[in-house]
């Protein structure tokens, strides 16, 4: 369980100005949940994500991953939290440490001293799934923007962390790779063979991605303003636009068709599969 208890984050700059990026958030995310987080630019999404794996710390209030508190004065706890919480960043350039794509994916596993054979299988699986086979001997900085993003995702997924936070990794992906990414999230979500279920948090500006998850949280100026099932929240168009979110076109169309008394019972009737 991920627990936020009245958490506030205030950024202070060199000239002493303060900016409250997270403003008194309390929340529980249970194991096995798949949560989507949306909100305007600057609403606090990335700050929220960074709190979850100890990249930054709350100014007040507490953040816990299972039974471990995320606190700056406990380096051992932070290491443990980074093992449990994997994070794929908005900007992949900051993430790479190795000389080739293949070594980048293996990097985390090598650090854990994993068995060579298992490691090779897992790395091969990631190269295959994220379409990086032909680029495996390239240097990460030589990749195109979309390939870099896929590499960043593969290097985190290969570690199989219990909690996974995606900070808008799909922003520069083409449709095919966006679908592959959503499929990868769904696979993790439905992965029930392990006894500790994965918990997924996907931060996005694409409202239709919320339909893959079972909970949608909307941030506005550092506060949670909506929290509920995506298919319900996405029907609240007038509320959403106030938070700079536009529902998927099918939802906006459904609202208008209902208003004009068209015989529709559910928005599902306006969706062709697949969702994306």
């Amino acid at each position, binding site marked *: 369980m991920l627990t936020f208890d009245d958490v506030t984050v205030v*950024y202070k*700059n*060199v000239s002493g100005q303060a*900016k409250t990026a997270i403003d008194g958030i309390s929340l529980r995310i249970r194991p096995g949940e798949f949560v989507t987080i949306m*909100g*305007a*630019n*600057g609403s606090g999404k*990335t700050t929220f994500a960074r709190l979850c794996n100890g990249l930054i710390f709350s100014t007040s209030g507490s953040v816990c991953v299972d039974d471990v508190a995320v606190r700056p004065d406990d380096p051992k706890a932070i290491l443990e939290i980074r093992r449990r919480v994997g994070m794929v960043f*908005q*900007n992949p*350039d900051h993430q790479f440490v190795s000389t080739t794509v293949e070594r980048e994916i293996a990097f985390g596993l090598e650090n854990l001293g994993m068995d060579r054979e298992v490691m090779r299988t897992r790395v091969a699986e990631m190269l295959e799934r994220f379409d990086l086979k032909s680029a495996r001997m390239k*240097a990460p*900085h*030589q*990749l*195109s*923007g*979309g*390939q*870099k*993003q*896929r590499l960043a995702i593969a290097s985190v997924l290969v570690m199989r962390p219990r909690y996974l936070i995606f900070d*808008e990794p799909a*922003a*520069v*992906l*083409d*449709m*095919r*790779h966006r679908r592959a990414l959503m499929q990868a999230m769904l696979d993790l979500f439905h992965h029930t063979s392990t006894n500790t279920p994965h918990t997924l948090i996907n931060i996005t*500006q694409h409202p*239709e991605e919320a339909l893959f998850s079972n909970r949608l949280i909307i941030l506005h100026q550092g506060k949670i303003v909506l929290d509920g099932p995506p298919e319900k929240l996405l029907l609240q168009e007038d509320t959403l*636009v106030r938070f*700079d*979110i*536009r529902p*998927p*076109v*099918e939802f*906006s*169309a459904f609202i*208008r*068709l209902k*208003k*004009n*008394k*068209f*015989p529709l019972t559910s928005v599902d009737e*306006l969706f*062709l599969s697949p969702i994306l």
Partner: protein
Amino acid sequence: MRITFQDVFYTYNITGPALPSAHIDGVSFSVDSRETIGLVGANGAGKTTLLQLITGLEKPDRGQITVDGADIHGPDYELSALRSRIGLVFQSPEFQLFEPTVSEDIAFGPRNLGWAEERVHRLVSSALQAVGLDAAIFAGKSIYELSEGEKRRVAIAGILAMEPAFMLFDEPTAGLDDSGRQHITAILHGQKAAGKGYIVASHDMELLLETVSRFIVLENGRLLADFPTGEFAQYCEKLPHILEPTRCMRLVSLLRDKGIPIPDTVRTRDALLDFLDDLTPQKK
């Protein structure tokens, strides 16, 4: 201004600069700087490289790039003058932001062009407004204090402030919220109304369908197709592995199948929703 590629080849040099690049494999085309163009293709198809070649940031191995007939890598050509006329907004705003504060960063380009301080001032505030950033909050902020979407907006503002005759955008809406997206659409419409063209490399087909009149499709560094926007639907059928109908287009055909008579003029989301708003209520 006319930009022409003649059989351009470019191979990424492993020891070269650490810019994201792919291969360009014999590309020829010609564009007028008043045209509005969408550059599309899968990740790694060469869109970013092509934009960098246009501004002379990368040099072709073979072939020629000319602007109004002059080879941009010719001995007497002034590349810096070209770069003040063609503005490139990078895919990663980090490659572009380097001044300590937001307003200084945006002012950097126009100042470099030697423009009067008063004019620079005016350009900075109108550029901030165009990208939807409140000057009172953002002008004095350090670029290290920005969220990703805020950074992208500042990067776009910095190029806008130089008032280039032609603009190149690499994924301008990636990571932007809905209002940011609307600001980008308005910026593109404004450029077009001022007789200034642009090339937008993007996967955001809705944005392109609203803002460009011509599509150029790349695949593995080759030019695969070049067609007017009116033929987008046809090309989705011809090149299904690269182009596909938008969610809005799919919904329109589904609604037509349900017997709702949506006219052919309805192509964008806004147009569709306006049409549905005014649809006569069905009688019981």
